[in-house]
């Protein structure tokens, strides 16, 4: 709602942040809300960009002279989730709400960017009731924290750029001032403080002063680009290690000429990191590779292996059973079996032929047929080795010993408990499948369940594939266990192409 009260609320929040201290709006009830907003904005911009008043004349107008209602624009963008979300593709909607057909993004950035960033810093509780309906578009229902973190990441990257800029052009006041406008200076100070605290803690860990319970796992050693909110809570760090898909935080040390302001180098290299990040938020222990931090290699009989002196005399009895047992059980080549079958085999190293005579090449059914065909050939070639090597326990054929109901049940339990932070998935599976041993469940998981998930991902979300994220449960099996009916084709009717509701990313 773009009422004067909304504009005044913005003012009160700015005052909370330390801007527009003495500003009072005369008779706000009788003024047009957008004028009230323009006044607040003008005061704010004066403080944020000292000496640059002329570049942002108010009221804002387009090239053709039409006035822009900044209040409406600001409100529309906030309702759509803020500047960052809109940058992800919602500008058209925001523009429409603000009744504008102009390049709103540039306009927004110029006039309202700084305001947007500052307002976003305020915790949720400070927001007025009107804004509670604000949908968080990129949260996937996982809560506000992802949004906050995402913003913080963007801020962090911006702040770093600013610090570098300042370092490279020390004499330019403009660079400094711009950073002040975006709140970079306090953020930079916070980072410096956090890093020096982290260093102090590291030094004490290296001396063995901290026991395992006291020190925080995430601080001692982390893989790159992990955000750990719990670490923040424990140690009061103001800044998490942040990264984003496209930005790196690089060592500022060189630029800062030995200043204590060092931002550790972190970077994100793949989209799976996002999942790691979200997992961090949800679970209390990610895979941090905890370590007893020992930067100095210990020396002593408790650490080194005993290496005898070299002797020219070889060991005796290297042919004795004690030694020969290490050769293990020879599985291949076989003694006399199946020499004939080898003649028909494909050349070594040959891959697949992509051309086949299936009705629907490369469909789920086609693939399953060829895999079965290949396995049959292998069985003929290997003979008993096929079973000894465990090929009879590999792949989707495992599912043949499971009923449809059991499979559906497995999937249901996975969907319910795989994302749960309690890590009780396997207990739950055990409860649901009392007659199956855990080994059987694990085998089904890797040989069938994950395989089918990948099958789905390959066809429906080919740009978003993951063989290793255990929490991903949004998928369905294509076809039944034998691959039939994966694609239904009714020859009596004409085929019509309709947009797939499952396909989420083929157009990107």
């Amino acid at each position, binding site marked *: 709602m773009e009422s004067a009260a909304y504009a005044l609320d913005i003012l009160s929040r700015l005052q909370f942040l330390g801007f527009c201290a003495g500003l009072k709006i005369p008779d706000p009830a009788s003024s047009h809300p957008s004028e009230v907003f323009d006044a607040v904005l003008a005061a704010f911009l004066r403080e944020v960009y000292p000496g640059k008043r002329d570049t942002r004349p108010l009221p804002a107008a387009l090239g053709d002279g039409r006035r822009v209602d900044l209040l409406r624009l600001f409100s529309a963008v906030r309702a759509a989730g803020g500047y960052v979300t809109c940058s992800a593709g919602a500008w058209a909607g925001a523009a429409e709400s603000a009744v504008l057909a102009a390049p709103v993004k540039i306009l927004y950035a110029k006039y309202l960017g700084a305001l947007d960033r500052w307002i976003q810093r305020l915790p949720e509780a400070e927001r007025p009731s009107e804004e509670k309906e604000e949908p968080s578009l990129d949260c996937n229902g996982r809560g506000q924290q992802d949004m906050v973190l995402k913003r913080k990441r963007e801020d962090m990257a911006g702040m770093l750029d600013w610090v570098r800029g300042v370092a490279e052009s020390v004499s330019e006041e403009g660079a400094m001032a711009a950073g002040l406008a975006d709140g970079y200076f306090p953020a930079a100070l916070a980072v410096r403080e956090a890093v020096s605290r982290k260093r102090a803690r590291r030094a004490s860990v290296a001396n063995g002063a901290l026991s395992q319970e006291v020190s925080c796992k995430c601080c001692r050693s982390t893989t790159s680009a992990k955000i750990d909110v719990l670490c923040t809570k424990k140690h009061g760090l103001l800044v998490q290690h942040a990264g984003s898909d496209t930005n790196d935080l690089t060592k500022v040390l060189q630029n800062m000429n030995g200043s204590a302001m060092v931002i550790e180098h972190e970077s994100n290299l793949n989209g799976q990191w996002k999942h790691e990040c979200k997992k961090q938020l949800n679970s209390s222990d990610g895979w941090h*590779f905890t370590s007893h931090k020992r930067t100095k290699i210990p020396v002593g009989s408790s650490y080194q*292996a005993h290496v005898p002196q070299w002797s020219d005399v070889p060991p005796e009895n290297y042919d004795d059973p004690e030694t020969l047992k290490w050769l293990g059980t020879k599985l291949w080549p076989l003694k006399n079996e199946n020499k004939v079958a080898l003649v028909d085999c*494909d050349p*070594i190293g*040959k891959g697949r032929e992509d051309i086949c005579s299936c009705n629907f090449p490369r469909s789920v059914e086609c693939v399953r047929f060829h895999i079965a065909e290949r396995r049959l050939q292998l069985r003929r070639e290997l003979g008993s080795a096929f079973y000894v090597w465990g090929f009879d326990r590999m792949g989707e054929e495992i599912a043949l010993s499971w009923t449809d109901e059991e499979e559906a049940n497995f999937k249901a339990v996975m969907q319910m408990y795989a994302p749960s932070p309690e890590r009780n998935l396997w207990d739950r599976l055990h409860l649901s499948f009392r007659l199956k041993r*855990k080994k059987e469940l694990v085998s089904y998981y*890797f040989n069938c369940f994950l395989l089918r998930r990948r099958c789905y991902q390959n066809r429906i979300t*080919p740009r978003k*594939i993951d063989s290793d994220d255990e929490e991903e449960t949004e998928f369905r099996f294509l076809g039944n266990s034998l691959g039939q009916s994966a694609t239904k084709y009714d020859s009596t009717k004409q085929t019509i192409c309709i947009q797939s509701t499952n396909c989420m990313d083929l157009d990107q």
Partner: protein
Amino acid sequence: MAASGEGVSLPSPAGGEDSRRRRVSYFYEPTIGDYYYGQGHPMKPHRIRMAHSLVVHYGLHRLLELSRPFPASEADIGRFHSEEYVSFLASATGNPTALDPRAVKRFNVGEDCPVFDGLFPFCQASAGGSIGAAVKLNRGDADITVNWAGGLHHAKKAEASGFCYVNDIVLAILELLKFHRRVLYIDIDVHHGDGVEEAFFTTNRVMTVSFHKYGDFFPGTGHITDIGAGEGKHYAVNVPLSDGIDDATFRDLFQCIIKRVMDVYQPEVVVLQCGADSLAGDRLGCFNLSVKGHADCLRFLRSFNIPMMLLGGGGYTIRNVARCWCYETAVAVGVEPDNKLPYNDYYEYFGPDYNLHIQPRSVENLNTTKDLENIKNMILDHLSTLEHVPNAQFHERPSDPEGPEEKEEDMDKRPAQRSRLWSGGAYDSDTEDPENMKSETNELTANSILKDDSNDDL
């Protein structure tokens, strides 16, 4: 620019004149894929089974000797690890309430190294494979031995670490040391090979060389100035790298450093830990190597014609781990497999492209030319200290008055007593059809990686 063919050529053992062919012995425990670290844990032994499936479906088994490993006993494992630790591992079951919390803390099990069902048999299979691989090399039964279930390089003498419980590599090297005077250990896992370095930190009979990400990264050791101690000083090499290193950069650095290592150290056998978490897109790693780039290390080492052991290690994007180790098995036997994967039991894991090779990501290589120059120079400097006294470091310790006088050993030949037990020729001459075998290609530069836009793993 060919990536192979460079290297000091030492006289090859009998039967190895054809540089394309090697006798390769491969250890595989058929139940290894059934072991499960637990919900959400990134280490998945299932990847070894996936790799094996690819190896077999490509027909590579026809050029391999395949063996099921003998499970190492507590006593065998105790050749390196402490007795209390081994007995703890042997008795630990998956039931969390049965564990003594003090022992859990003391031996560092619980989080990264959970106690899971079948933990000890898993360790036994892993260690058994590596020790078996060592015995094969000692006996001269093979030129290259492979154990993808091994390579667990973080385990320490009395504690688990980084998903590793029993350090199969140390056990294997101890076995190799019975027949080889100098063993070279090379580690291309993205994490520092701390367990192996620590075990051999004070000896000159094992030189450990590790290429790894350094800086706010597990395990935190592996600084360039860690060069060993005591008699082992200058026999540990650490190459600390930053994120995003690519094939070309890695290859230059690797070849330059390893060539010098080979020159000055002249190892008799090489152990290569092929941790696949240095591949692009790894769940925990941060490098940007393709499968070809990763395998270039093996290819380069192979050209030196020295007996070699290949071990597994890290690797947490399991579809890429399987691709990598399958391809490296092919390189070991001297075959260049087709990029289009054959239909196999885990085919769908490899979609939507279903190709063997992967594309590096478009990420920044944070290793600047200057950084790399500095690293290279520093390491070559360290290594040059070994050149000045070419024989001194191999002398017996002077404090041992009873020791035999050191003879001028001819480092190029194996002593006559260790005559070969195997007479030559491939394992099964019927299966070797030279017309069917693909010739080894030398075109291994980044340019030769298939450009496939549809392979866009996220």
